[in-house]
């Protein structure tokens, strides 16, 4: 990343999961790192997440699920993005996500999954390095 353009990130809670401690902390860390962050709040359908990402013109989407619904909802979001012809938004995820599920989520287009215990810097650096501005 060489441009001085600000990275815009949508952080989202798809599904019905109410665990938002992690997502709020990540949102704040990204803001502290100089990014513009939009947080959707709870209970977002895949359609709502994709709509918000397009409306806000973000470079990155961060998805958080701790309820186990990731295998249904993450790929669905990727499908909808594809259907919109979007391929340049970096999509990352986090939450309680068993190791065995990660290969399929990556195959579906999620770039990286950050599990419990991930330092905030790791997430910030990953986004800075991989985002397309």
């Amino acid at each position, binding site marked *: 990343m060489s441009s001085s353009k600000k990275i815009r990130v949508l952080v989202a809670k798809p599904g019905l999961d109410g665990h938002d401690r992690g997502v*709020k902390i990540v949102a*704040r860390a990204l803001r502290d790192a100089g990014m513009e962050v939009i947080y959707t709040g709870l209970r977002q359908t895949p359609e709502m997440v994709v709509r918000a990402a397009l409306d806000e013109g973000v470079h990155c989407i961060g998805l958080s699920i701790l*309820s186990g619904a990731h295998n249904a909802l993450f790929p669905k979001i990727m499908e909808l993005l594809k259907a919109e012809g979007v391929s340049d938004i970096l999509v990352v995820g986090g939450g309680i996500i068993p*190791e065995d599920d990660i290969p399929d989520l990556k195959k579906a287009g999620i770039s990286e999954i950050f599990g*419990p215990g991930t330092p905030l810097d790791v997430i910030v650096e990953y986004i800075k390095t991989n985002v397309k501005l």
Partner: protein
Amino acid sequence: MGDNKTLPAAVKRWDENTVAKTIGKFPEREETFLTISGVPVNRLYTPLDSKDLDYEKDLGFPGEYPFTRGIQPTGYRGRLWTMRQYSGFATAKESNERFHFLLDQGQTGLSVAFDLPTQIGYDSDHPLALGEVGKVGVAIDSLADMEILFDNIPLDKVSTSMTINADAVVLLAMYIAVAEKQGVSMDKLRGTIQGDILKEYVARGTYIFPLSPSMRLITDTFKFCSEKMPLWNTISISGYHIREAGSTATQEVAFTLANGIAYVQAAIDVGLDVDAFASRLSFFFGSHSDFLEEICKFRAARRLWARIMRERFKAKKDSSCRMRFHTQTAGCTLTAQQPDNNIVRVTLQALQAVLGGTQSLHTNSRDEALSLPTEESVQIALRTQQIIGHESGVGDTVDPLAGSYYIESLTNEIENKAMEYIQKIDGMGGAPAAIENGYIQREIHEAAYSFQKSVDSNERVVVGVNKFQVDEEQKFDYLRVNPESELEQIEQLNNLRKSRDDDKVQTALHDLRLGAEGETNLVPLIIEAVKVYATLGEICGVLRDVFGEYKATDL
């Protein structure tokens, strides 16, 4: 406690001679030591630190006001705490099998986890339920599912705790209806519905309706149960989720008790006598990783609640002042790294809860930072409690840490700091107002963020995460919820809709709508609706229509 006149000088001498000499050669590990909640910890506590403590007034005796030393006169000498593992997943049938397994293993009470659609009042075929059915708990769409869930479980013998909030009254109605089919009348039922909506707005997120109608559902439940279900705990006022969201120990006590105050006030405002319902209020706390601080937290919470009930609400009966609570070890302290270490964490946390005088306990399983726990992991977690109860001896005398200079000093400090918060919240108009203006959520977020920073900067060690890491491969067997469960559940729901008597359902829902629009107690109307197999989604749909939905505060 200490009236030793020479002690201050002696402490000074020790500090200046003995300690100074040692520190010269061996500096301490930190300049200031802090509890995990940020409370400074002194090098040494002496009788001077609790010299204002009046034994009879501030500590008293177990089973007597202000209950600092516990609510049972004989502590755990009569009966150990209730070992209650939170459990439930997939369909009612699979959860019923897990319940039978747990009861066979010596568990003494049930604790039901519901999936998110159930907790948020949606049937399993609702678009927002996609991917969530049966995931974090069992899916319940109607009384038919509840009948399967409790199949062959005698409801007059077990006590059942249900983690359900916004629509707690619907699940309570279903429980009453199942019991009736077993021939057990509702006055015999023992158990708890969580029913604590305020902390859902703050921390847990399974709200449905706006504040005011939500409070009405709670006071309707208090009233109904005070007349018909004398053994039922009508609410479990929960600090657990506030703590899990990142609060400190003091905030956990303060915000939980502030919510408790709001419920008591709401019930009094609708005309209930405080002594008619207060003894059925129960509480739920987390047990986090600072061993001594947590023990003090439990003791402080008990004393503060007793004083609030007596002094603020003028409760006459001691049983109205008695804080009974459930404890769960802190899920947020479990690590995905080296997961077997979690067994040790849970052991310490469980021990704290017992030393703090809990009435019931859930011990987390080692694999919960990774997925739902396997049967083997759940068994180890339950065995942890059994070892503490039957082998360690800590339950053989009541409140064994009382009188420790540090324990009593920190118990005081937590009580005082929590009271300061409560006064601040009172100044804003009480917990509901402090939630609507986002104050409580912001305080918790600040604490959570600064905790994460302290871990990321290695100021605070988390073993296996920022120190003592190893290269490891995940080698756990996961419990997987069969993806077919969701489809099966939806199919059963469709069959139910075809086979029931729709006229009766429509009549019951119509009556419920009229009731909700008026001021009548909604519990009997909801019982009628569940008995004719109206679904949870239909019942909550009517209430959504009448009450509207809560919109979260932007922070």
